[in-house]
């Protein structure tokens, strides 16, 4: 028993040391162009996806989900909630089933449930309000890609007042 604990502790120490010392080197992977990196990743992902149930359906599902993710990116739908839903749906369904079979609809009146519901609604409202009040990001920060994806000419969404202020500042500097 003690050996297992020591092995775990040592593995953590060695792992953390390796991660810290190699982080600079590993981060340079992000500098490799996508065209070079993608085929290797695809080979690894094909092998990894097949390990799930060892059927061809795993690979077909992998490709289908990849395609779904690409379409979601194109139509500007966030992909993260889908993944979170994928992970949380099974326990959520299980515990809802348990709550319904044990308490019926009465569990909805529990103070904890009401508190969590209020918190969720508040976060949703806050997120929506904050989303409406997002500050204007200058074109120099956004880059040309953002303009191309939005289908608008660069600087089209910059408020006139800001542009005028910028011009005024330039004139002042020249003076």
């Amino acid at each position, binding site marked *: 028993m003690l050996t297992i604990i020591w092995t775990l502790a040592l593995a953590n120490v060695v792992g953390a040391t390796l991660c810290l010392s190699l982080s600079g080197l590993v981060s340079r992977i992000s500098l490799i162009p996508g*065209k070079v990196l993608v*085929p290797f990743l695809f*080979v690894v992902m094909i092998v990894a996806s097949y390990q799930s149930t060892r059927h*061809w359906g795993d*690979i077909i599902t992998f490709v289908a989900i990849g395609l779904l993710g690409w379409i979601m990116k194109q139509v*500007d739908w966030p992909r993260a909630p889908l993944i979170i839903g994928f992970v949380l749906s099974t326990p959520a*369904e299980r515990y809802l089933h348990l709550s*319904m079979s044990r308490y019926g609809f009465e569990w909805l009146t529990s103070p904890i449930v009401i508190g969590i519901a209020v918190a969720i609604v508040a976060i949703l409202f806050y997120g929506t309000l904050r989303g409406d009040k997002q500050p204007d990001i200058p074109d120099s920060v956004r880059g040309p890609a953002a303009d191309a994806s939005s*289908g608008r000419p660069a600087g089209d969404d910059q408020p006139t007042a800001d542009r005028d202020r910028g011009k005024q500042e330039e004139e002042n500097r020249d003076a």
Partner: protein
Amino acid sequence: MRKLSYGFGICVFVIFSAAAYASTGFHRLAMYFPFAVALGGAVLSAIYLITLALEERQSRLPENKEGLAEMRRALVYLGWFLGYILLIAIAGLVVASVVFLAAFLYREARMRWWGVLISVAGTLLVLFTISGVMRLYWPRNLLGL
């Protein structure tokens, strides 16, 4: 891209609506979760479609040419990946990986032949080593290679 948005939104709406309808036939306790999720999804996707239609009516934005070019590029990549998977099904993982990596790196990534050779050899080495150590299973194929 707008057509894709409409198509995707309609697909999501149909799937959620069908799931909501199907869940009404489940046992009472098993029905609640899928019905609630599917109903919420159907309502939200309907709102999305309505918003999309309203936005289009208000401002007729030109079709994004950059997006069309990206779609063409993505279709080319999809062709590569589907070809690789087809080759795995016929000739097995090792043969397919060698052919796919060599062809993709040489043609798409414009790598030099010696770089391709080293990359393919390295990948095979890693693949065999990891498969041996972790006892991984490789996809079955028609030729049994």
